[in-house]
């Protein structure tokens, strides 16, 4: 029995586990696949979008810067070409031109200077009193004297303020001279400064030595820009060329991953670099990712909860169905078969009755004879007397069986009258209480008040209930239990149930418990007639006797009797 339970438990547990696994696998895999694919696609296209946007931004700004520089250069070239050396060496004229330029372009032009082929400044207009400065040693001069025009990197120069120079060489008339303009660094920087995106996006310009040409006004300090490495990345590794936009990602010194977008400007001399933290650049994506993940986890949680509850419900149903199936194997006795068996049994009993009576009387006769004096000295007298006694004893046992058998088959011989069910049952319970106490059985009663009386034979009724109560107490003889007797009116029927919490009746025996002589008690302890007699009596009263039993849980006998019995059956 325990082994059975163990097996069932094991079966139910593995069923539970399988259902949970199947539900989770079947729902989670598509969920993950779908969300994963969608997120991946979204991420790719979002990256694409962000890169495109940045590329465009950098491209347009690089063009802006290029055209700014070009424009400044053209202005100066125009000035040299149109005015000529003579005019420009006149400092007042130069001053005038500077004023015009500053009027047209704001503060971009800081000063103008004319330098001869030896690097001496021969004319100057501007706020600094540079006078006849000698530039022969400076790099920009050497470069600009060799080419037609030159735009320098940002440097501090003589005045100690960052600036850069646009220089145009003029060879007209065989004499080389240079018109130099200083471009305000702040004005230039603002061009780059305007490129700002998100919270960490900013731009800067590197020269061909990887030196910063602008001061990013944004939060990050200069040393946050790993300018040397960035330059190397784009120029050496990616071979950046004019008109090409390159993108790279790398960690900066503070271990943040950054995205770098670069374009080459000023004919490849400078590099416009846009830098933004990846987390910032893809902040929306991150938000989407968090929302998607949260939704997915909620979905997963939902699936898991559902899997557990669903499987629990299913397993409970299965367990209940199993239990019901066991209970349903209750006995539905074919009354015909039982009746014929009963008739046969009573016939046999009747035939056996006389021989038994004769045997008992004969042995009694031996007993009588043993009283004679002639046997008084017989050495086997005690033995004979014992044998006679045994014959009598077992003869009486036979008589008991036959008399029970006959009562099983007998016709109605007791008068039928109105029976107060409640009183009768209470009386029976009181009578059984001593035996119940002895068997550690508690009797609980639940009788409906005001039950109508039933037309029945009291003695038959008593017989039925004595049998059922005794059986119930016997069923709990191992370790006691509870015997519950209840009576109810259900429509036109009186329903009485006698339940025990005993060991139950195995399914195999359930079919046979109403058969005469069927007993599980040891030989000599039970005749196997009690229940068949009960069955006979209840059937005869037009009622039904049913049994429900679950091994290990207990047995319930249900009696339903009509209040208005069919009078034909009573006859």
């Amino acid at each position: 029995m325990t082994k059975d339970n163990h097996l069932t438990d094991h079966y139910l547990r593995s069923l539970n586990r399988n259902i949970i696994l199947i539900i989770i696998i079947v729902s989670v895999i598509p969920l993950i696949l779908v969300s994963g694919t969608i997120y991946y696609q979204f991420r790719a296209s979002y990256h694409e979008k962000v890169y495109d946007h940045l590329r465009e931004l950098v491209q347009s700004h690089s063009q802006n810067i290029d055209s700014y520089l070009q424009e400044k250069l053209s202005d100066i070239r125009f000035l040299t070409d149109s005015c000529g050396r003579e005019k420009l060496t006149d400092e007042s004229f130069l001053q005038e031109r500077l004023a015009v330029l500053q009027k047209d372009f704001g503060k971009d032009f800081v000063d103008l200077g004319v330098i001869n082929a030896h690097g001496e400044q021969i004319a100057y207009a501007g706020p600094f009193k540079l006078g006849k400065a000698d530039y022969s040693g400076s790099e920009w001069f050497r470069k600009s004297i060799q080419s037609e025009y030159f735009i320098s990197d940002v440097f501090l120069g003589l005045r100690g303020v960052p600036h850069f120079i646009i220089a145009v060489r003029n060879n007209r008339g065989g004499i080389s001279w240079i018109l130099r303009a200083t471009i305000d660094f702040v004005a230039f920087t603002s061009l780059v400064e305007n490129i700002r995106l998100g919270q960490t996006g900013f731009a800067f310009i590197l020269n061909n030595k990887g030196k910063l040409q602008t001061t990013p006004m944004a939060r990050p300090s200069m040393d946050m820009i790993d300018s040397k490495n960035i330059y190397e990345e784009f120029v050496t590794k990616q071979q950046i060329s004019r008109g090409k936009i390159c993108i790279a990602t790398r960690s900066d010194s503070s271990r943040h991953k950054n995205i770098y977008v670069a374009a080459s400007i000023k004919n490849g001399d400078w590099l416009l670099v846009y830098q933004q933290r990846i987390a910032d650049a893809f902040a929306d994506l991150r938000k989407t990712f968090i929302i998607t993940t949260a939704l997915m986890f909620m979905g997963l949680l939902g699936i898991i909860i559902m899997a557990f509850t669903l499987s629990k419900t299913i397993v409970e149903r299965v367990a209940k169905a199993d239990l019901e199936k066991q209970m349903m194997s209750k006995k539905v006795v074919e009354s015909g078969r039982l009746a014929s068996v009963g008739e046969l049994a009573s016939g046999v009993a009747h035939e056996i009755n006389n021989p038994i009576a004769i045997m008992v009387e004969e042995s009694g006769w031996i007993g009588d004879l043993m009283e004679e004096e002639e046997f008084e000295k017989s050495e086997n007298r005690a033995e004979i007397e014992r044998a006679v006694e045994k014959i009598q004893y077992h003869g009486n046992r036979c008589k008991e069986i036959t008399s029970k058998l006959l009562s099983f088959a007998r016709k109605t011989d007791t008068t039928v009258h109105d029976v107060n069910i409640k009183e009768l049952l209470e009386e029976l319970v009181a009578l059984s209480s001593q035996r119940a106490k002895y068997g550690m059985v508690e009797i609980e009663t639940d009788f409906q008040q005001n039950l109508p009386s039933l037309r029945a034979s009291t003695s038959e009724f008593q017989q039925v209930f004595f049998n059922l109560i005794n059986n119930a107490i016997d069923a709990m003889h191992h370790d006691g239990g509870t015997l519950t007797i209840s009576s109810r009116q259900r429509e036109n029927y009186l329903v009485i149930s006698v339940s025990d919490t005993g060991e139950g009746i195995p399914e195999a025996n359930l079919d046979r418990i109403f058969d005469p002589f069927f007993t599980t008690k040891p030989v000599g302890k039970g005749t196997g007639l009690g229940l068949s007699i009960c069955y006979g009596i209840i059937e005869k009263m037009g009622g039904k006797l049913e049994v429900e039993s679950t091994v290990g849980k207990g047995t319930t006998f249900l009696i339903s009797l009509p209040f208005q019995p069919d009078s034909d059956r009573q006859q």
Partner: protein
Amino acid sequence: MTYSTKNINVEPVRLLLIDDEKDFVNILSKRIKRRNIDVAKAFSGAEAIQMLRHQEFDVAVLDLKMEDMDGIEVLKMLKIMSPRLAVIMLTGHGSAEAAEQGLKLGAFDYLAKPCVLQELLDKIMEAYAFRRQSD
């Protein structure tokens, strides 16, 4: 031994045993005789009626279930032939109806068969005493 007829009764009870089970009648009569009762045996209803024509009895023990005649019929005949005869009926289980019918017809009492000898003897003495009283 609670039985005391041996000493008290000078005149033994005259008993007629009617049953078609010969062995039963034989052994029962032996045992009853031993207790100082005068027993006559009849193995059928017809035989009993014949015997009653020639002899008088105080008490009759009648098995209600016999092959040749219904016990009730025999009882009716006995009561007609000897109204003062006290008849003790032996009934099988489940024939209480017949027993009740017998009582209405004037039988003294009934015992379920098979019965313990002592019970039967007591009943016989009771019936005998009753018959004596009604004399």
